[in-house]
């Protein structure tokens, strides 16, 4: 919303986007210098890139991000395909029929994305049933959040952006949008995490930045919804919200560059941190909790 209460004009939102990109460039230059700079002669392999996701930016502890676990287990097939398959089905849904029929049609003709089709091809009937049940639960959940509206454009793939001149990739899940791809007005992000206003603000700014990195303007708002709540919460996209997202990206990039000095943020989440065994602040946090 503008100061006068109406929508912010497109040209203003365009300027916010270019300011946020310049701000990100300048801040990365400050904390990284030549590290992770693409010099044009050699493109490093993907495993050497820094990848920052919408999940990462909401994690409070930069040290945990900078020192990831060596044995990250691979996600289950339901975790892998549920969201994409549900959105393919919702894109197929006519808004009137029982949504499960749209899923039936989607599964009957599924060829793209190939990674989803291939994952399903390998499954026996019981595993396929498990995937279907998970997809239906996701569809019902997101539909209850948006009160069954059928005019959303569902985005199946994660948005991915490579920061210009750096081997840094930003990835974000935006589930749906209103408006044209290059000029979205509203983005929807649906998640299974606990509702949290502070997280919403960070995620909204990050998703808006990533999704519209090559677009012409940032969206007017990002709506965040949480599993089981049946509601969405709007975060208006402003220069301040974008700056929070840029700040988180820069903090995490700096932490990866210098993990020894990365800040620790002990809290209840330490309970599940792979570094807990060697992290004194984490241990005393849990030792001292009620």
């Amino acid at each position: 919303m503008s100061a006068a209460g109406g929508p912010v004009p497109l040209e203003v939102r365009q300027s916010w986007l270019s300011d946020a990109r310049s701000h990100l460039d300048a801040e990365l230059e400050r904390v990284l210098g030549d590290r992770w700079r693409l010099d044009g002669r050699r493109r490093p392999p993907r495993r050497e890139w820094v990848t920052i996701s919408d999940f990462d930016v909401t994690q409070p502890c930069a040290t945990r991000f900078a020192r990831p676990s060596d044995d990250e287990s691979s996600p289950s097939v339901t975790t892998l395909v549920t969201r994409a398959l549900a959105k393919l089905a919702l894109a197929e849904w006519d808004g009137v029929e029982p949504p499960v029929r749209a899923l039936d049609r989607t599964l009957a003709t599924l060829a793209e994305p190939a990674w989803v089709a291939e994952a399903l091809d390998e499954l026996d009937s019981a595993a396929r049933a498990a995937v279907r049940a998970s997809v239906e639960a996701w569809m019902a959940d997101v539909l209850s959040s948006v009160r069954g509206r059928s005019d959303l454009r569902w985005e199946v793939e994660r948005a991915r952006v490579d920061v210009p001149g750096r081997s840094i990739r930003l990835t974000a899940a935006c589930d749906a949008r209103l408006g044209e791809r290059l000029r979205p007005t509203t983005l929807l992000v649906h998640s299974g995490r606990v509702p949290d206003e502070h997280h919403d603000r960070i995620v909204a700014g990050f998703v808006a930045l990533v999704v519209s990195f090559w677009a012409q303007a940032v969206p007017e708002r990002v709506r965040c919804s949480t599993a089981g709540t049946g509601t969405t919460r709007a975060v208006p996209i402003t220069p301040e919200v974008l700056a929070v997202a840029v700040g988180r990206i820069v903090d995490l990039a700096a932490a990866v560059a210098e993990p020894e000095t990365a800040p620790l943020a002990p809290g209840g989440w330490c309970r599940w941190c792979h570094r807990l065994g060697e992290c004194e602040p984490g241990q005393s946090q849990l030792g001292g909790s009620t």
Partner: protein
Amino acid sequence: MDGSDTPADDVGDPSATLLAVVEAALEPLGSDWVERAAAVLPDLRAAVEARATAAAELLDGHGVEAVARVPKSRLADLQRCERSARARYLHPDDRGPGRAALRGVALDRFVLLAAQGSPLSAPTAELLSVLDAQGEEGLCDQVIEAVAEDLAVFDDLVDPTEAWRDLPDEWWPRLQSAATASLAGGRIVCSGRLDAELGGPLVGRPGVVVEVKSGAPRQAHVEEVALYALLVGWRDGVPPALVVRWYPFHGAAVAPVDAGSLSSAAARLGDAVETWAQLLVGRTPSESPGPWCRWCPDAPTCPSAAPVQVSVGAPTSAGGPAELPEDDEVEWEPPDDGVGS
């Protein structure tokens, strides 16, 4: 209130299909039934919000910053014994489910397969396939271990799930859907995963919440489904018309949702939110011994612990499996939601 009562008189015919049970129960309800029950939802929300806000203020005053979670399992724990609820929070049991809970896991997945129209011809293999697809490697190991000890450990659970086949698309059966109340600006969260839902506003039919229980009927299950009706009502703006507790060997117990059941669920939730906040900031918990002492982490040191009674193994009157006085449920949710308490 405890887990040992057995209100078995309200269950129905074990051979009836779920759809037949639901349709028969809906018939006598007037067309304005759901609207009348829905009318109390805003006031109940306001009352629970006020108590949750006070609880959040209490947490603030003691520097407890994380979101406080009062999921269904904690609510049930608190109703049994405060000290045990706190102990289970501080020392989560990572040993995996016992045998009764594992049968609950198997039953949930057999229901999934039946509701999805998938064959159940080699139940153990199909159960393992579902668990593997869901990333439940630990449960797969437990199932393999259980079957190695007793080849037929899950067999009796398969046939009853035929009641779940052929549910029409118009009722859109959904499994493991979420219902969450975010209270006090997100500081207090009460969440549940419903075993199954049918109908509801998304398909323009009366909503039905179904809980699948592998053990015998208990009073605690009645309170559980009432809580789910409340959470679904807040989520959808209208409560379900019916709550159903489905038992493979006892049939389905069906109850219409009304203002009374929603109000008591809201009162119990408000009590639990207050109690949990008090315990988080250090109030000494009360001790309430009962059959649940058997699986309480504090039992070795608790002066009130009930003496262990060896009563495992007696077959139920319905001819079902041996009844184990143990939790028969394992949450599907991962423990890590990244928010601490």
